[in-house]
């Protein structure tokens, strides 16, 4: 048997993801990639991997894998009870496993999505430069599909890697409320000041119809009067206001072009938080300038690089 992991139970929705598919938007191919890049990056880093290596995005939980290689893996992101051969284990640190071990994830107590990375990543051929699974397009992963029972996830064996742990103080905490920072843009100048203030002062509830394409919100509608638009490119975090006035936040699997008015886009850092919010969670918005957003992003990237995980075995 070749090395890797066998999928015993695929869980609710488990997708192979790398950093995403870039440079193909103009052909109608969306970006894909991890909905929470922060947790995805930590999972890889705790395995000693380079950034953007193929890992699993486990939504809600229920995954069970059987090891067919001696290696290390790390689980980061949503708080899903992790066991190896039935023994509870800690997330946010790498764990050593050997062939025959069973790795099981329960259902998320906090957060929505967890990332399971292995040393040197899962060995999956790229399509259009990426392994990111986009089910709607049938692209990436294993034939464009979510994991299914019986799938084989090839990866290399390794015994030389150290296990690493992220100190508790650095681990994100996922609550029931997020404040998303927004860079105004697109048609924002066509939206009245009154309606913009109304938007930034309102609180919304995340609807269960949300998925990797878009987060849908319920709450006070925004009243805009913008004539028909020609479809135009939409980016990550773009906030669409359709005719019913209820904001829709576009996620990693969004369509590449769209014709609804948009008042701006949520900062990428905060998209990670939104990806971990459970349906029913509360969402509000805060305005930042494009320059502020850049400084915040660069400071966060610098902070990420400065944190040193601890060796733990």
């Amino acid at each position, binding site marked *: 048997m070749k090395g890797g992991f066998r999928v015993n139970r695929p869980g609710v929705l488990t997708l192979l993801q790398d950093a995403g598919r870039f440079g*193909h938007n*103009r052909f109608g191919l969306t970006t894909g990639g991890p909905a929470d890049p922060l947790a995805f990056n930590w999972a890889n880093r705790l395995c000693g991997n380079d950034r953007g290596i193929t890992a699993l995005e486990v939504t809600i939980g229920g995954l069970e894998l059987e090891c067919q290689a001696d290696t290390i893996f790390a689980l980061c992101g949503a708080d899903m009870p992790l066991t190896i051969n039935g023994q509870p284990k800690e997330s946010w640190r790498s764990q050593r496993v050997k062939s025959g071990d069973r790795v099981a994830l329960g259902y998320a107590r906090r957060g929505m999505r967890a990332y399971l990375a292995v040393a040197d990543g899962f060995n999956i051929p790229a399509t259009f430069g990426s392994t990111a699974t986009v089910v709607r397009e049938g692209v990436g992963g294993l034939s464009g599909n979510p994991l299914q029972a019986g799938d084989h996830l090839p990866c290399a064996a390794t015994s030389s890697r150290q296990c690493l742990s992220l100190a508790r103080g650095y681990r994100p905490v996922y609550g029931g409320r997020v404040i998303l920072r927004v860079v105004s843009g697109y048609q924002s100048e066509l939206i009245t000041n009154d309606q913009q203030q109304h938007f930034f002062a309102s609180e919304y509830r995340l609807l269960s119809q949300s998925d990797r394409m878009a987060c849908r919100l319920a709450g006070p509608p925004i009243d805009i009067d913008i004539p028909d638009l020609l479809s*135009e490119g939409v980016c990550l975090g*773009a906030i669409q206001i359709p005719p019913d006035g209820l904001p829709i936040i576009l996620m990693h699997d969004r369509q590449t072009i*769209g014709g609804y008015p948009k008042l701006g*886009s949520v900062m990428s850092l905060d998209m990670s938080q939104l990806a971990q919010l459970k349906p029913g969670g509360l969402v509000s918005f805060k305005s930042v300038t494009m320059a502020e957003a850049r400084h915040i992003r660069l400071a966060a990237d610098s902070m990420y690089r400065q944190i040193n995980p601890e060796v733990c075995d």
Partner: protein
Amino acid sequence: MKVVPASENALIIYFEQVVTADTSARVRQATAVLESALVDVLIDLVPSYASLLVIFDLSCIDAATLEQQITEMLDAAPAASSSDGKLVELPVYYSMESGPDLAEISRVKKVSVEEVIALHQSREYLVYAIGFAPGFAYLGEVDSRIVMPRLDTPRTLVPRGSVGIAGRQTAVYPVDSPGGWNLIGLCPERMFDPLSEPGMPLQVGDRVRFFSINRETFLARGGRLA
């Protein structure tokens, strides 16, 4: 031309907001200019009917500097020509069995089925935008004698390769999908193939001409009939 913020790391360039070959040529030209000049800072470019979304790496450049560079480069670019895009010729098997809405178009527009087919092939179309699904190219504009509104109730399954008309636009469905366009034929060419790169024959600004093939040729070229 106007450059507007879109997100922390994206600017959108708006050209005159009209669907014309001239505007489309400016979009295509801007895409080509920025693609070669900004290769180090670009993450992705999304051209559409009358705009170009520029997604950049904010660790390499800030928005104000990029906006200035974009403005200078596009102001210095020579006038765009609408005939620069590459010409792609696509075969279509037009028939009652491959085009379930031909009869309805003929009835509503009071032109014969043969004329509908001839008019669809009578002009060169421009790729104004690609979206909805990978490889779904919005082509315009069809002869006014065959302009048809979308179906009242979209079909739950339109087979891959179906050639449709919606309003003044025409397109080839790249994959099996739901859809509300009026179907007039089938194209055996793959407009999107997830297993082959580049996988897509068309880009925004390309030109498309359709030509008629018979059933035998359609099948010989790998076309499939339900």
